């Protein structure tokens, strides 16, 4: 990924992240605001519910008080106490309840048994344990003849004038009609879950009540709003069960369908009896559709802004790339050219900012490099001339000294008799001839080095070159002088074809040089191995010996002209070899450790078959 792409990605991510952060903040804030509003509405409704509940309680209490205070009821109570016969009043409760518009009314005799029941007339004679309760109104689940039970708001009163006391227990249903009277805000739904409870009849088989209240399983059909059963009532199960178990108001977000807008903020308020048992649960649900729609709207806007921002970032990145990345790209290309050896590279200096300063520094650096290279070339050239002069002086000094002696002998021999002079002359001229020939040889070597021929390339297989070397030096290695041990010549050639485009004579000369060096490195005998194998795009030729090896310093300077480790070497052999290999676009390296032999590794480009 180049700098321009990185800048584009960076700008896009920055804009998208900024938009996302703003959108998230707004969404969270909206959610908090809506939740606060829902909580306030719920709290308001709860307070209204409590007021309505108290109002209903007062109504029930007033109705029961009115009945208890009526002359008819007091006379009835007196008669019941006096005669002990409650049979004539079997239907009295029904009549009284109808007159007082109560849903429930029971007359309870002095013995605590029901005398008359409006809601269940057949229940006369059965005990009513809460009749003695004279506190305020209370919630109670009332059993009905059809086996069901309904929730009611009750009040119990004692009928004055009769002793022992006769009681009244009256109440009104807490059902859908009650919910219909509650003030409900728009978007709010109020429903009542009345627990199935345990009917007095159904519980007759269990002589003792369980210590821990056992709630009937949640029944969605029992969750009713003012208009009837509510949709998706089963989704309220966890909330209502929690309120039933804990006895505390519980709030939660309920998802009524798979759509988020069909979710509600629901609060379950347990309605308890005077003993603290949860008899019913009032649920207040406030639709979250408004909030969800607002969130969706904001999210859509955020997506739009983010898309626009990304497009804007692309445009900006292109413009900024023109300003910033283009000089840097030019610098990168210039650096690549410098690395390739073009030290004369220059980049334009357009600005005065950091990039412009970087360009100026780069140009200064390349100028310095070119200057230093020039000085280095000059220095090397001087050093080479000095080395050449030193070598020439060294090489020429040896033959010149015998020449000088011979000439001086000839001068001194002029005083000798002619016969002796002739003898001396003949020997001197012979010596002069030999030394002059020696000087010619030295000059010829230097001449050869300076006049390396241009390679005449032809296709050949590496095996042919190796075989030619083997045939030339294998016998020489086996039959050496008396003061040398024989050398074992080995070759290791890959069976695969190893074609390359080389000058056979130059390469033969280079390999011969390496073989002779290897033989010189093993005066006490050893193994000389010549191997070749194809690589991916190259041919690798290795010349190894088992001699004394080379130090790292020697390895580093080995190919320097006129550097030699031999006593009578010119230091030009390996330089010539490196020159030949370089002329073939190849490379040569040496691998060696002291006393572990040395290996020269030549790699040459492989040629394509048929080329």
């Amino acid at each position, binding site marked *: 990924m180049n700098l321009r792409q990185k800048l584009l990605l960076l700008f896009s991510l920055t804009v998208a992240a900024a938009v996302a952060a703003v959108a998230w903040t707004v969404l969270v804030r909206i959610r908090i605001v809506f939740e606060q509003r829902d909580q306030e509405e719920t709290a308001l409704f709860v307070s209204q519910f409590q007021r309505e509940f108290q109002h209903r309680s007062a109504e029930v209490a007033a109705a029961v008080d009115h009945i208890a205070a009526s002359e008819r009821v007091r006379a009835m109570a007196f008669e019941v106490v006096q005669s002990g016969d409650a*049979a004539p009043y079997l239907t009295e409760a029904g009549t009284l309840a109808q007159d007082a518009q109560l849903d429930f009314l029971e007359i309870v005799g002095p013995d605590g048994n029901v005398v008359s029941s409006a809601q269940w007339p057949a229940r006369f004679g059965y005990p009513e344990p809460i009749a003695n309760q004279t506190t305020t109104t209370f919630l109670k689940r009332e059993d009905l003849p059809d086996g069901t039970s309904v929730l009611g708001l009750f009040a119990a009163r004692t009928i004055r004038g009769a002793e022992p006391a006769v009681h009244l227990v009256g109440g009104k249903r807490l059902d859908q009609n009650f919910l219909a009277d509650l003030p409900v805000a728009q978007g709010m739904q109020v429903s009542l879950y009345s627990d199935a409870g345990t009917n007095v*009849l159904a519980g007759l088989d269990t002589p003792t009540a369980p210590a821990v209240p056992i709630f009937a399983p949640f029944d969605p059909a029992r969750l009713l709003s003012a208009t009837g059963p509510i949709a998706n009532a089963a989704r309220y199960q966890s909330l209502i069960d929690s309120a039933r178990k804990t006895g505390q108001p519980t709030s939660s977000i309920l998802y009524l369908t798979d759509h988020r807008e069909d979710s509600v903020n629901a609060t379950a308020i347990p309605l308890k009896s005077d003993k603290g048992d949860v008899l019913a649960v009032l649920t207040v649900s406030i639709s979250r559709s408004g909030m969800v729609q607002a969130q969706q709207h904001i999210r859509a806007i955020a997506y739009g802004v983010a898309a626009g921002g990304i497009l804007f970032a692309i445009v900006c990145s292109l413009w900024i790339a023109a300003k910033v990345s283009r000089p840097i790209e030019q610098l990168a290309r210039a650096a690549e050219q410098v690395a390739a050896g073009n030290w004369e590279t220059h980049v334009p200096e357009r600005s005065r900012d950091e990039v412009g300063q970087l360009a100026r520094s780069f140009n200064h650096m390349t100028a310095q490099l070119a200057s230093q290279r020039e000085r280095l070339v000059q220095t090397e050239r001087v050093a080479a001339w000095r080395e050449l002069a030193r070598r020439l002086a060294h090489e020429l000094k040896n033959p010149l000294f015998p020449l000088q002696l011979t000439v001086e002998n000839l001068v001194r021999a002029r005083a000798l008799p002619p016969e002796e002079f002739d003898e001396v002359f003949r020997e001197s001229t012979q010596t002069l001839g030999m030394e002059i020939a020696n000087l010619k040889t030295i000059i010829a070597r230097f001449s050869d080095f300076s006049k390396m021929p241009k390679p005449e390339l032809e296709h050949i297989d590496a095996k042919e070159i190796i075989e030619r070397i083997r045939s030339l030096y294998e016998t020489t290695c086996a039959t050496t002088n008396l003061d040398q041990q024989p050398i074992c010549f080995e070759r290791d050639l890959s069976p695969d074809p190893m074609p390359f485009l080389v000058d056979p004579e130059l390469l033969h000369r280079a390999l011969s040089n390496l073989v002779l060096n290897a033989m010189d490195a093993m005066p006490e005998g050893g193994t000389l191995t010549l191997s070749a194998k194809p690589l991916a795009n190259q041919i690798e030729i290795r010349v190894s010996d088992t001699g004394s090896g080379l130090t790292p310093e020697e390895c580093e300077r080995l190919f320097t002209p006129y550097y030699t480790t031999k006593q009578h070497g010119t230091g030009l052999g390996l330089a010539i070899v490196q020159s030949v290999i370089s002329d073939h676009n190849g490379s040569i390296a040496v691998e060696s450790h002291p006393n572990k032999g040395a290996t020269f590794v030549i790699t040459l480009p492989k040629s394509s078959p048929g080329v």
Partner: protein
Amino acid sequence: MPNLPSLLAENHFLIELTDAGEGKAPACCIGTGPFQLTQGFPKTLVANENYWGGRPFVDKVEILTNKSIRDQWLDLSVGRADIVEVPAEQIRLAQQQHLTVIASPPVTLIALAVADSGVLSNPNLRAAIALAVDRSALSNVIFQKQGEVTASLLPNSLTGYSFLFPTELDLNKAHELRGGLPAPTLTLAAENNPTMQLAAQRIALNLHEVGFNVQVVNAATAQHKDLALLELALSSSQPQSALESMLRGVGVATPVLENTPAGLYKTEREFLDTHTLIPLLYLPRVYAISGRVRDLRLSADGSPLLADVSLQDAQ
């Protein structure tokens, strides 16, 4: 069959001419008793001039049906009726309204029929039901002490052995007989009138105490009845005939072979031991009459003997 005459006199052997043919009304009135039935509405009994016992005092009797008790009493109070029905449990109320009330001996048996099929094919469960019903509560409260608690088919006034059938409830024994079996859900059918429905609900409450779940339904619309609260009329003043008629009324065709108290007791005991019919109480038939009605007597089955009745203002 020594009881053939009384058997033939029962209501279900009546022969009624409903159509004289081709849609024409019969030419003459129906019947050979003191009154003859005429066609049309309201049903009218016309004095039979040729009655062998002598012509009745009143010329005709109009019978109005399908009127509530309240309307009947209203008609009586304003002079539109001379004889009206009074449910037994409302005798006290009728007296409080200063109506002249005339009541028969106990002639209507309130009984609980128990199916011997399904879960109730177990005789122990039927026996448990019989022991769980609180007859005294039914009699004293629902029927306002106008009933006679009984556990026999025939009233004690007719046989004298009714006391041999215990009427007390025994919840412990009922529980024991039920034996901890799972509480079955039973349907109890009763007539759709408030008193019978209330009695049925009370019985349901009693049965719940021994572990039965009972649902009270309307007898007219009930598809299935495990229990049924019945009103069985005493059709004869002759014990043997009355017993045979009653057994036949509940679908048992067991002839009573001996017309002796021991034979009747044995027959009754054998039948009641099956607990397919549980007698609860006997009720009288009660009427309220206007002030001008004279010499009204009730027959053995509680029906008014109209042939002897005269009206004061008609003299």
